[in-house]
């Protein structure tokens, strides 16, 4: 609780310094608007921002769903077969070594200006931390439990259901938390490169008109989306994992 209070105090302190500096130095609005102006724009333009935020949110959520399916399948396959792990590991690392910006135009060409190119962008960013964490979780299972399950004659699917999956769940949620925190990056980059809606699209439009206050308002909404998703995953984590190891 003390940590949260300290975090809030620090945040308000930084915003306060920003506000005071903007007013004293009289920085032009098209360069750096004051926080009070950003908040008022974010509120007064709420219907427009909310409409585009919903689209971005939808892209992110679809990206999360897609990445979770891919990450779970990949990590199980890699865990079940060392050969598959050796074969997939370089590809997995390569997928993160290539900058997302470089892939965005290609995805737009392949998947069009619609929602799916942004969903793929988000999924591409999210799936990596989930896969790596989940695989690490499976591998961290205590070998004595493995011995016990061998004695009980448990097949791999049964081990997965009763042992490996619950064992790796905290790792899965840790990966998912990281994934949803950065998911906005993928969706917004996709919207920057080519879109007709979404907060990224709005940011590009308003940036061209030097409406920096509107750009900041969109960033504020994106931040709220990111924090909300993180909070939802944290809540689910607490609800699902009720045990201590």
């Amino acid at each position, binding site marked *: 609780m003390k940590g949260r209070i300290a975090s809030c105090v620090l945040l308000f302190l930084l915003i306060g310094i920003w506000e005071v500096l903007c007013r004293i130095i009289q920085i032009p609005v098209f360069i750096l608007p004051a926080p009070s102006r950003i908040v008022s724009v974010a509120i007064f333009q709420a219907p427009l921002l909310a409409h585009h935020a919903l689209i971005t949110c939808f892209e992110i959520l679809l990206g999360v769903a897609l990445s979770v399916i891919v990450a779970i399948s990949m990590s199980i396959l890699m865990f079940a077969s060392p050969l598959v792990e050796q074969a997939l590991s370089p590809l997995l690392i390569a997928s993160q070594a290539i900058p997302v910006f470089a892939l965005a135009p290609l995805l737009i060409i392949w998947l069009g200006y619609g929602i799916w190119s942004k969903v793929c962008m988000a999924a591409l960013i999210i799936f990596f931390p989930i896969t790596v964490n989940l695989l690490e979780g499976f591998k961290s299972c*205590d070998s*004595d*439990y493995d*011995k*016990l*399950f*061998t*004695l*009980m*004659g*448990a097949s791999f699917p*049964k081990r997965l259901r*009763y*042992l490996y999956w*619950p064992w790796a769940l905290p790792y899965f949620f840790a990966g998912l938390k990281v994934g949803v925190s950065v998911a906005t990056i993928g969706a917004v980059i996709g919207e920057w490169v080519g879109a007709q809606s979404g907060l990224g699209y709005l940011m590009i439009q308003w940036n061209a008109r030097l409406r920096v206050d509107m750009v900041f308002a969109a960033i504020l909404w994106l931040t709220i989306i990111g924090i909300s998703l993180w909070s939802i995953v944290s809540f689910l984590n607490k609800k699902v994992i*009720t*045990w*201590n*190891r």
Partner: protein
Amino acid sequence: MVLPQKSFSVLIGPSGCGKTTLFDILTGILPRDSGSIEWEGEQLPHLGTKAAYMQQKDLLLPWLSLLENALLPSMLAGKKGPAEHQRAHELFSHFGLGGFESYLPQSVSGGMRQRCALIRTLMFEREIVLLDEPLSALDAITRRGLQTYLAMLKNQYGKTVLMISHDIDEALALADDIIVLTASPMRVQDTIHICRPTLCDSMAPSMETLRCRVLNELEAGGIQ
């Protein structure tokens, strides 16, 4: 090494001599490169299908209730019928865990967790029970209480028990036979038969001679 049927034998030997490895070989977890295993006149590659194995740690799954943990061998064998549930409930009652079936392992004491692990071992429904220092992680008082439950394995459930222990008093209190092992490479140094009708107090004077004999054999077998 000979295990009489429906007897309680305790293996005592120096650390690192290979007691747990022996259990791993007996259960088929590790391959055997020499020797032979025979049960009821039948040569077997291992005792995997005949023996239940309880390891040092209780190994209860923290996400399952005590009852679900006890039922795990049945669940994995595809048996989830009322008969298994009834048997588990009976065992919970016999082992003093009645009313704790729905508790998660983290909510109960170390002794209760160990009793639950013992119930799970019995749910294997195998003739032989291998126990690898099942009480070593517990305090002296809890350990003494649990010895009664270990004795039940042979006396009430008719199991053939082979237990690893480092505690001579515990061995004297429970065993029909104490098998003293040498340091690596492990051999049977001596088998000491404990002749008594029922479980008795390990501190009784008559046990003192046996305790000395076990200690002498351990020293002769290479323990410093």
